[in-house]
């Protein structure tokens, strides 16, 4: 009889296992796994944890890492709140041009980051349309300050929460809202106590995706940031600078620190999600 002892996979007459699994695994290895392995090897075996720490534990690196995560957090929190509101408006309300607005939400996915970067800089620079307005009326500089970084990261992360929450709002059973009203709850109470908790897991997923994306964002930020060491210099830019100085160990150390913090954040958010799902039953 034919050999079917390979215990990895349940036997089936479905064809193409070897071919599809082979292509998948070899491409995954060449493009993702081996390169990631080389980075970790370079960092932990060649350079060592102590070496990594020595690189990170310098004011300029520390400031860059802190800035990247702080700005990503601010931008993603904004996108969390705004994304839920926008998703609600797009699903529940009717207004002219809604189709176009809905499609435009994905613009940050489609627009190259370098284009977004120079475009945002053009309007938020002191001589740009909004930049001049803010400077004149509020004395606020946006481009070339941390606020500029926030703006760029809000742009980049904008679609994530909207797109994860939108389908959930569409699936809300109207009867759930109606029963809340028949029990005497005000509309506001229904929203805060019934609807928002239903949206929470999806919103958190979107938040996590936006955060992961904006922590490492480079293209849209460097044009608007000003890139002043210790002030507006983000961590990815510092990696580029280290590489240009041929300081590979320095670049590797910062990269590993970024990966470690990103995964810690994603893990934390996953745990919150599991917790909130469990509390609400199977949602």
């Amino acid at each position: 009889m034919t050999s079917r002892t390979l215990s990895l996979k349940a036997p089936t007459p479905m064809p193409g296992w070897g071919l599809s699994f082979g292509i998948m695994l070899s491409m995954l290895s060449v493009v993702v796994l081996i390169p990631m392995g080389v980075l970790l090897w370079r960092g932990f075996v060649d350079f060592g944890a102590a070496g990594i720490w020595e690189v990170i534990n310098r004011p300029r690196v520390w400031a860059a890492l802190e800035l990247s995560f702080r700005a990503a957090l601010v931008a993603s929190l904004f996108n969390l709140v705004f994304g839920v509101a926008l998703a609600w408006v797009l699903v529940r309300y009717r207004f002219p041009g809604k189709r176009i607005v809905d499609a435009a939400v994905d613009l940050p996915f489609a627009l190259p980051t370098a284009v977004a970067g120079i475009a945002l800089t053009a309007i938020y620079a002191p001589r740009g349309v909004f930049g001049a307005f803010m400077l004149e009326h509020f004395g606020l500089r946006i481009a070339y300050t941390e606020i500029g970084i926030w703006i760029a990261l809000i742009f980049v992360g904008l679609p994530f929460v909207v797109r994860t929450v939108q389908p959930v709002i569409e699936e809300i059973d109207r009867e759930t809202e109606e029963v809340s009203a028949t029990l005497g709850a005000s509309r506001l109470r229904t929203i805060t106590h019934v609807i928002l908790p239903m949206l929470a897991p999806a919103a958190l997923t979107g938040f996590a995706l936006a955060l992961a994306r904006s922590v490492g964002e480079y293209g849209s930020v460097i044009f608007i940031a000003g890139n002043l060491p210790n002030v507006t210099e983000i961590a990815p830019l510092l990696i580029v600078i280290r590489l240009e100085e041929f300081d590979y160990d320095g670049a590797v150390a910062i990269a590993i620190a970024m990966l470690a913090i990103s995964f810690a954040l994603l893990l934390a958010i996953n745990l919150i999600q599991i917790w909130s799902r469990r509390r609400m039953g199977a949602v």
Partner: protein
Amino acid sequence: MTDITPTRWRPATTEPALVKWSLTGLCLAVLTVLLFAPLIAVFDEALRRGWAFALASLGDPDAQSAIRLTLVVAAISVPLNAAFGIAAAWAITKFDWRGKAWVITLIDLPFSVSPVVAGLLFVLMFGANSALGGWLVANGFPVVFAVPGIVLATMFITFPFVARELIPVMLEQGRAEEEAALTLGASGWRTFLTVTLPNIRWALLYGVLLCNARAMGEFGAVAVVSGKIRGQTTTMPLMIEMFYNEYLSVAAFTMASVLALLALVTLTLKSALEWRYADQLAATHRHH
């Protein structure tokens, strides 16, 4: 009998009109400031000195070579990622095997890695100071600061796009149609080409569309591996940066306009797919 004047009544599942209008207005205002204004600014800045001037900047030999390189890189990396996406979706949805969840996580990994780190990966692996890179350079096949490195970095960044689109669609469609084709005597390839592929074609196109948009616009990863050699390893996004840093504003924004147009075409096609073939796309894209 009294007249019923429904002044206070409204459906239980809506908000007061005032809330509706202010929330809608607020959202549109934020979108204008963050999305629409920058988009308009791109074209406005490009045309600051007129059409002729803008178009002339695209005739620059460096600009031309950047456009060519971007097309070449997309033409290689997008089909490869499409092939990967189809193979991965087939292996994941048509078979039961151990470790599947891990592999799905690994496929998604590039989404949470900074583009700059992605570029760094390939510099470390294939750079002249690594064993492999040194050997490749000695044999006349440089990867870093050359096209292969740009392709690899682009593939890394866009790696999950097609697979992520196909997996939910194929899971939802199940295996019964393929099984039916097999019981009717169709070979594996015939089953794939005549049953599976027609069922996933719009989802595949959707994934390829997004993959392509990202591939042509990738900046950070490509900036790190390409070495930014003018006329040789400079893609369109890198060219934008160069023009911009040289204060060639019109040239920078004209090239940006080309990519912005590509983004608008992508969005239009994407929306058309969502509108027309909603039932054949992953459920998360059905919101019309």
